[in-house]
């Protein structure tokens, strides 16, 4: 039995370690092959350009896309900004209405808010209890002046997979540009751009064992999608995004996506088994609830509410596990997770939630350790909880007049 190294990392949806195979590939491009890929006059530039184009082809291959459809950015936040602002501004003469979803990442929601300030109108669709949008409700939200729809592939908090194929069909039929924030999807969901009617797709390297600070935007060529650039300068990336290309980062993303393509099937199966092992290990405790659809979900994610236990104190109690919480107390804003609230979970359940996200380096031994720790600490915190005591006495907590503060 190998020695368990603490704390155990179960926060792969926040970020992943760079795979050592990826890091090894990146290093020569920092020290030896340091050329500027835009330098056309010498071999330093040519070598760097070749590396960038190889990486572009790898990213395209994971999506079954054309390499010319991949635009490098600094990460998914920039990709979301470029896609949403760029498309809205380019197509504004057609209409001013945008549709997105309440459970999107802030990079999408805040970009939409900014567009509202610029005079666009945005519909924020709610989700069902399982975290998925209601397709009929989506159809009903479409207006003659709708120009853009933005829906995420995989939710970062609860891991649910939206029905991107169907939403894409509806958008294409109506001639609406469709953007997908796919930050959490590479290596987890099979994506084929020849099948999916997606026009713009945001990608990130560091959620898939690549480095931070690099991402890409897929921009469809057939039918062609136009964007107004948000970053002006030397006209790199065919004018979509100026700025010197970070060769080493790009090489890292290319290698990470190559590995994702090759290892996705076996890795997903292994991680699913571990995730199910974790859930089976804790689900028999009383008052434990899974957040988000169980089936329409990536195998890496388990988001659980431990009722009557507050999230931050639980995180402190299980400090040997690196996890995140939907609790207000772990956020600067003191607001509980807006994603969990959008599911209709009450504030208490949001406060009591923990997100476990598993990944490439998670082991069975780590999961077994986590199960034992959770059982012990949740028992102790419940002994400390007046809400648990009242629940056990049969008091209906909803009938209590709380003094809100």
């Amino acid at each position: 039995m190998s020695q368990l190294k603490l704390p155990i990392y179960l926060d792969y949806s926040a970020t992943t370690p760079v795979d050592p195979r990826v890091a090894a590939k990146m290093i020569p491009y920092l020290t030896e092959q340091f050329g500027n890929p835009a330098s056309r006059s010498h071999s330093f530039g040519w070598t760097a350009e070749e590396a960038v184009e190889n990486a572009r082809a790898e990213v395209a291959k994971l999506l079954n896309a054309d390499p010319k459809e991949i635009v490098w950015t600094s990460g998914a936040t920039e990709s979301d900004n470029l896609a949403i602002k760029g498309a809205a501004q380019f197509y504004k003469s057609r209409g001013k209405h945008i549709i997105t979803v309440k459970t999107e990442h802030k990079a999408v929601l805040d970009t939409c808010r900014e567009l509202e300030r610029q005079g666009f109108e945005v519909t924020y669709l709610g989700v069902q209890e399982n975290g998925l949008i209601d397709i009929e409700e989506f159809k009903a939200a479409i207006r003659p002046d709708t120009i853009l729809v933005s829906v995420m592939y995989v939710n970062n908090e609860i891991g649910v997979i939206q029905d991107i194929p169907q939403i894409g069909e509806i958008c294409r039929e109506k001639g609406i540009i469709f953007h997908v924030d796919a930050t959490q999807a590479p290596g987890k969901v099979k994506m084929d751009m020849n099948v999916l009617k997606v026009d713009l797709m945001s990608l990130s390297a560091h959620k898939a064992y690549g480095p931070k600070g690099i991402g890409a935007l897929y921009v469809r060529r057939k039918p062609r999608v136009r964007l107004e650039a948000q970053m002006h300068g030397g006209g790199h990336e065919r004018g979509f995004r100026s700025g010197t290309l970070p060769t080493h980062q790009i090489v890292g993303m290319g290698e990470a996506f190559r590995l994702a393509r090759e290892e996705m099937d076996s890795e997903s199966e292994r991680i699913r088994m571990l995730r199910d092992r974790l859930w089976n290990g804790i689900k028999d405790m009383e008052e434990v609830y899974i957040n988000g659809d169980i089936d329409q979900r990536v195998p890496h994610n388990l988001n659980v509410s431990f009722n009557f236990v507050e999230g931050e104190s639980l995180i402190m109690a299980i400090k040997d596990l690196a996890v995140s919480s939907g609790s207000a107390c772990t956020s600067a804003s003191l607001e509980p997770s807006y994603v969990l609230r959008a599911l209709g979970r009450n504030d208490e359940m949001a406060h009591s939630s923990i997100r476990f996200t598993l990944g490439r380096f998670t082991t069975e031994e780590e999961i077994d350790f986590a199960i034992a720790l959770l059982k012990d600490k949740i028992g102790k915190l419940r002994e400390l909880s007046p809400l648990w005591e009242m629940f056990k006495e049969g008091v209906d907590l909803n009938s209590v007049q709380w003094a809100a503060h």
Partner: protein
Amino acid sequence: MAYSDKLMDHYENPRNVGSFEKGDDSVGTGMVGAPACGDVMKLQIKVNADGVIEDAKFKTYGCGSAIASSSLVTEWVKGKSLDEAMAIKNTAIAEELALPPVKIHCSILAEDAIKAAVSDYKQKHGK
């Protein structure tokens, strides 16, 4: 979040966890906060014939600071008269545990819990 050693000690080894019989005449119970806000404190005091708090117990649903604040006040109220207990200020709790600014509300809640427990006791005794 980086917490002080004192806070961590109270969080990891909370003092006086538990409950007294609510109906007991010598017991005052204070329950403050709300589940929706992320913290609920229940503080109980046991008062002897001389009007001195001889024992205290708590249960808290909340973050580490809330648990530590309530654990601390159970220690502080013991041996005090009701008036002395009422004089405990949230600023003293916050200072003792070196609460970060976003957690000051936990100390306010602990002060409120003492006041609620004392007033429950007084009500039982028609004061």
